[in-house]
């Protein structure tokens, strides 16, 4: 009897081992990639705590502890910097989360296949418009003299605004142009999820007399939720992101109050070479915030929808 039991146990172990070792083959190349491209250079994190001197290298440069962080946090405009960065990124997330979902849901419901394919391609193209051109166009559209946006506003009886020169408009300009650029791109993932829906569910729903709106609400939307939650988790880390190039291009004297973000600050500091450690420290701060945000949102998501990164 004992002999038989042990045989069965070993058979079980052999079987699970038989399956498991193959998975190591699946991950091995990826693990190698991460070690080479991410973990080997990771020693560079200490630059944030050192006074980096090129001739001494990273390991030879003297430690300064938290000096750079102190300098950053005691800078007169530090609170403004952080507030501006947080606000613009959070608003960006708030708008950037539902818009691609809505677009995907409605795009999926277009009846004419040619119109659908055309729309799908068109909304994806703005992603390729470079930031330089995008910013240039914003200046032209919003020009106080010649821009057509103000012309339309005047025609509708409103007062023309000087969008690019007023602090209170900066975030709107930044986010609106960003949505134009990237909302269509964001629909790709959701359209992919929507194609995976079982046809039979629609048949059943139609038999039950469900309208299109109900179908969207009860069938389409739930099928996107897992992907949407994952996207939210992954994007949550961008709340302290730099956005350097775009902010730099859209920044004018008049909107510096709101456009002065960490990205622009780091760029200005980085122009003088001695600031290398300082900008590394700021970068580390951004990364830590990003980490905390993502882990936090991940935990919440796990509780609410059981979607998690782990």
């Amino acid at each position, binding site marked *: 009897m004992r002999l038989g039991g042990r045989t069965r146990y070993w058979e079980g172990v052999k079987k699970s081992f038989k399956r498991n070792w193959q998975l190591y083959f699946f991950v091995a190349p990826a693990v190698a990639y991460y070690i080479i491209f991410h973990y080997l250079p990771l020693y560079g994190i200490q630059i944030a705590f050192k006074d980096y*001197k*090129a*001739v*001494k*290298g990273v390991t030879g440069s003297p430690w300064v502890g938290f000096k750079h962080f102190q*300098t950053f946090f005691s*800078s*007169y*405009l530090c609170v403004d910097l952080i507030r501006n960065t947080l606000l613009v990124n959070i608003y960006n997330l708030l708008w950037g989360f539902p818009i691609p979902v809505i677009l995907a849901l409605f795009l999926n419901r277009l009846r004419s296949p040619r119109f659908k394919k055309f729309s799908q391609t068109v909304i994806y193209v703005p992603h390729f418009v470079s930031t330089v051109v995008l910013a240039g166009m914003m*200046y032209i559209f919003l*020009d*106080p*003299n010649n821009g057509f946006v103000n012309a339309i506003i005047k025609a509708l009886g409103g007062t023309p605004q*000087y969008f*690019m*020169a*007023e*602090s209170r408009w900066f975030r709107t300009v930044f986010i609106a142009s960003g949505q134009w650029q990237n909302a269509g791109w964001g629909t790709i993932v959701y359209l992919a999820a929507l194609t995976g829906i079982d046809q039979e569910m629609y048949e059943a729903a139609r038999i039950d007399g469900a309208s299109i709106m109900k179908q969207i609400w009860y069938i389409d939307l739930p099928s996107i939720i897992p992907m949407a939650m994952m996207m939210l988790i992954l994007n949550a880390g961008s709340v302290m992101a730099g956005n350097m190039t775009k902010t730099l291009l859209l920044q*004018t*004297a*008049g*909107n*510096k*109050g709101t456009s*002065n973000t960490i990205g622009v*600050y780091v760029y*200005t*500091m*980085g*122009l*003088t*070479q*001695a*600031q*290398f450690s*300082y900008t590394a420290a700021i970068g580390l701060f951004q990364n830590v915030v990003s980490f905390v945000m993502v882990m936090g949102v991940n935990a919440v998501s796990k509780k609410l929808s059981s979607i998690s990164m782990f």
Partner: protein
Amino acid sequence: MKKSLVALLLALAMILSCCAYAEEFTPRTLLTNFDGTSMELPITTEPVGFTVMQGIRDTDATTMSPDLWYVKKCEADTGIHIDYIQVNISDWSTQTNLMFASGDYADIIIRSSGTIDTEMYGVDQGIIIPVDDLLQYMPVLKTRMDVDPGYYAAIIKSDGHMYAFPKASDDGTRIDNSWFINKTWLDNLGLEMPDSPEKLMDALRAFIREDANGNGDPNDEIGYEATFDEMQNSIPHMWGIGERNEHYMIDDDGKVVFTPFHEHYREAVEFMATMYAEGLMDPANITQDGNAKIAVYNQNNIGMATCWRLRSMGWDVLLEDMAWIPPISAEGCQFQCSTGIGAASEDCYLTVAIPENELEIAAKWVDYLMCDQCMYETYYGPEGNIWTWNDEGKCEIGPAGDQGVMEYSLGVNGIYYLPPFYYNETFVQPDYRVERIEYQHYYEENGCLQKNPSNILSNAVSLTPDLANEKTQIFANLETIYDQAVADMIMHGVTDDAWDSMINSLKAAGADRYVEIYQNAYDAYLAK
């Protein structure tokens, strides 16, 4: 027989004519200069080579390939082979950081308009080597430097050594932007050239409210056209505030002043606010960049501009109507521009990567480039193409102008040492330089140049790395506060509350410390 002879001669002629078109460069053996120095070539017959990290402005189309005429010519003359690493100025910071970090230094660095911190990499870390001792091998450069040691004093670092060879292309002008008004419109409306801020404002009011350009529409004229920074660097001059970019100036008593704290600064901002409120300036001035401004210039429908010069800047169409305004002083003040100090800057650096026994050769290579013939070849390409030596022995640019240099050579990105005394002896200044030299005469005669040029603080005074860091960090905040506050005041009017709020913020952000850093450095500089 005859036929084949003719064919042979024809073939020979064709081959010879091909040779004439091929850019075969005959190496020279001797170069003589205006001041009597000369250089024998080639520098070496042994196979010596250097790597040179050469900065090139993004707007220049030069490609530093071995096929470039300049590269071939230098190698043919000197016998030294150069491997160029071309770095565009927008990448300069990244590439130099990487180079210094990797320990794989180029032999020679030529920075064009990028920055190299010699206090840090030279004095402190020893990656860049001092060049004082090498000047003994460089008669061409040394003779020229000895004429005026004060001219290059700024590149001597805190330990008393020079860590770079000096660079200059200085026609002697010290003024900054000049003021221009639309003369045609003045004439159309029967107005005189304004000589006070009030008259200037009245002229602009007339431009805007009446039909100055004579096309029947009184509403389409644009008044003052500039970028935001240009406005800040020009308008305050009327009140004696000669500032430029970094918001400091040195008053006649040698005190460093943070310009927003100057007693008359508020009047300057109020002037701009009035201009904005009455539509006398293009509202786009607050936000536009240089490119957009040039686009408006080219419509030739503006009343006033404060720019570097009119000729050969890309807006020559303005020459039709605009005229220079003699500097205007406000009541009780004297117009002061931001005066350039006229000093050499650092440009060419040698690193520890050069072997000891090749240092002399490297120095001689730089000296070669300092010969008259070479300097103008670097600047304008092959002789006979864009430029020639005229009868007086001066370099003169042909009537076609200086376009197209980038196919052959480096233009402004190269090495040369042309202080005013040398430049004006060896070069016929083109008309666009002459234009500014004429303006400068008026400035000199009418007290418009600063007694203590504020540009000393950015060019000649050196700060230790720690102080430089502190200054950069403070200034980043000051500039943000200043720009936002002044832009708001220009657009919405100057009130006591707004003004005091700005002053208080600037003080809290460390404006006094900013001044202190510069004052100490300036005093130390004077003591030398």
